[in-house]
């Protein structure tokens, strides 16, 4: 892939994630998707930029706002949608839903709905690679809200102490539900926290996929080479409510409008690629059509799915082996 093709692919992935999320919002209104739904709209550049720096055998751990991460990691979009429809064709047979997408074949390890709860798992995946002398990297995505959790600190320390191959990718979208960062951290420069553990840290514009990808492309190979963990703060913004229940009382409407109009990661890359002569209107339209078509296909796949049968309720609690009587 040429560099130009690569960047067009980044754009396409962002368009696809955006289209997928917007469709999810519609399906939620129609009550086809239920439970909690946390959309990634506005933050696409983070997952897209970081993931593009990974190898297929690297591992990813994410949060409940993880559709984008799953999709760009290559989890089948139809299986993701079918999951949210509660179908047996879902990537987790309907048991996980929006917040708990998994695909071991893509080394995508969730989908964790406890804030900071995925971090120890990432540490463990990396510890396994370290013990087996595998040169794989594990990326843990988490929101800036997680930084206040004790677990975050325990994990940074463990990773640094044991020189584990982990990239801590903080998606600083400035709010944890309704809590602005300055109301949850005494020091809002998150890279300083990493420094307290001797971990190399970068802060990048998380709306600029090129910048995110550049930073990740610096960090990941170093981690792979044995330099120990790194910390990447991506400054971003969520364009939508925290979840579908949120009346957004905590931030001014015009702040959202400003971010949407001035800092949209898709607009930014589109304009840049146009300016660089890599993208024209026709090819942009083609990319959008392709993204929409992929979402249509995912929805069609899910629509055609079969609800996971009630008879399977007690399956997958324990492995079916060993003749154990649970």
């Amino acid at each position, binding site marked *: 892939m040429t560099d130009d093709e690569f960047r067009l692919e980044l754009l396409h992935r962002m368009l696809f994630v955006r289209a997928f999320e917007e469709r999810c919002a519609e399906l939620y209104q129609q009550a086809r998707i*239920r*439970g*909690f739904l946390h959309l990634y709209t506005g933050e696409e550049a983070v997952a897209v930029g970081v993931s593009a720096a990974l190898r297929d055998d690297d591992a990813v751990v994410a949060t409940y706002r993880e559709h984008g991460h799953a999709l760009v990691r290559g989890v089948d979009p139809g299986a993701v949608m079918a*999951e949210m429809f*509660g*179908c047996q064709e879902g990537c*987790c047979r*309907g*048991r*996980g*839903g*929006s*917040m*708990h997408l998994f695909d071991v074949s893509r080394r995508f390890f969730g989908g*964790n*709905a*406890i*804030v*900071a*709860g995925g971090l120890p798992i990432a540490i463990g995946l990396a510890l396994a690679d370290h013990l087996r002398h595998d040169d794989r990297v594990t990326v843990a995505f988490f929101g800036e*809200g*997680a930084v*206040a*959790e*004790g*677990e975050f600190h325990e994990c940074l320390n463990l990773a640094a102490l044991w020189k584990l191959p982990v990239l801590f990718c903080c998606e600083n979208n400035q709010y*944890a*539900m*309704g*809590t*602005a960062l300055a*109301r*949850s*951290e005494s020091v809002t420069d998150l890279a300083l926290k990493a420094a307290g553990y001797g971990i190399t840290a970068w802060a990048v514009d998380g709306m600029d996929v090129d910048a995110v990808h550049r930073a990740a492309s610096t960090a990941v190979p170093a981690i792979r080479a044995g330099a120990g963990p790194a910390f990447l703060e991506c400054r971003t913004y969520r364009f939508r409510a925290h979840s579908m229940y*949120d*009346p957004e*009382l*905590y931030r001014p409407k015009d702040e959202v409008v400003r971010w949407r109009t001035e800092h949209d990661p898709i607009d930014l890359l589109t304009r840049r690629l146009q300016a660089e002569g890599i993208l024209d209107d026709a090819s942009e339209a083609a990319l959008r059509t392709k993204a929409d078509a992929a979402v249509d296909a995912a929805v069609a796949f899910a629509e055609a799915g079969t*609800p*996971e049968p*009630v008879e*399977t*309720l*007690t399956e997958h*609690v324990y492995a079916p082996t060993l003749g154990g009587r*649970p």
Partner: protein
Amino acid sequence: MREALRAALAGDERVFLMGEDVGAYGGCFAVSKGLLAEFGPERVRDTPLSESAFVGAGIGAAMAGLRPIVEIMTVNFSLLALDQILNNAATLRHMSGGQIGVPLVIRMTTGAGRQLAAQHSHSLEGWYAHIPGLKVLTPATVDDFRWMLPTALDDPDPVLIFEHGGLYGTEGEATAVGPLPIHTAAVRRAGRDVTVITYGGSLPKVLDAAEVLAARGVDIEVIDLRSLRPLDTATLLESVARTHRAVVVDEGWRTGSISAEISARLTEGAFFELDAPVARVCTAEVPIPYAKQLEDAALPSVDKVIAAVEEVRRVDA
């Protein structure tokens, strides 16, 4: 609940509310909407995501004589604060030989039924009821949502209030006009044939089952436990002495649920009164699945309650 919180804050300077997004966000279920504006950020205190620290801070503030109401957004996150709850809140009075009290109220949402999947659907109130030093309340009616809180705040010991997420939508005005006792079970429907014991989010299901059963000529007595610790065993025994049959309905996983404790106590206290073994309707022993059909199948339901009642009526001593 909002009214209860407002009255508590207005009525006692020592009371303050603390938790994630209780202020600017208005509370996860809009429970504390408007309170920030009324009482200010010192007394309606948003916290960072630090469950252990802010629950422990509530303990310390209570030790110092304040009356904190700490909100843990949902029971699912309370595990992060469990060390503080079990090793500090529940033990300090005892360890200090009675010198220290922890007059703390901890509120949290509990329960399943909204397709929130395995990490967001726990029903651990019965589990917390295992711990000496704590009190565990489970309001199920508008009156209890409104009037248990002031009694809990008056209590010199830590009180945990578990509010079932499915009940926030309950319509209706409180009929009680003052603080309600928190140590007694309530008979929500008198009946002759079978005692059905439940609490919290399962109460509406049991009352619905009672209607269906009544139409079939089966008259069940419905007891709302209200408090899981202490457990008002006397009210249960009194009822079973009349009906001779009992079913316990709760949303915890069956093994080790509060229904096991109730079954054991009824056996201990009314063995020779019972015409059938105490039956349990609990949640299937699976992490709660997301898909609606699976979640529905996992949880207690009106149909399962009816079936259990019919079953205990079939057995005869």
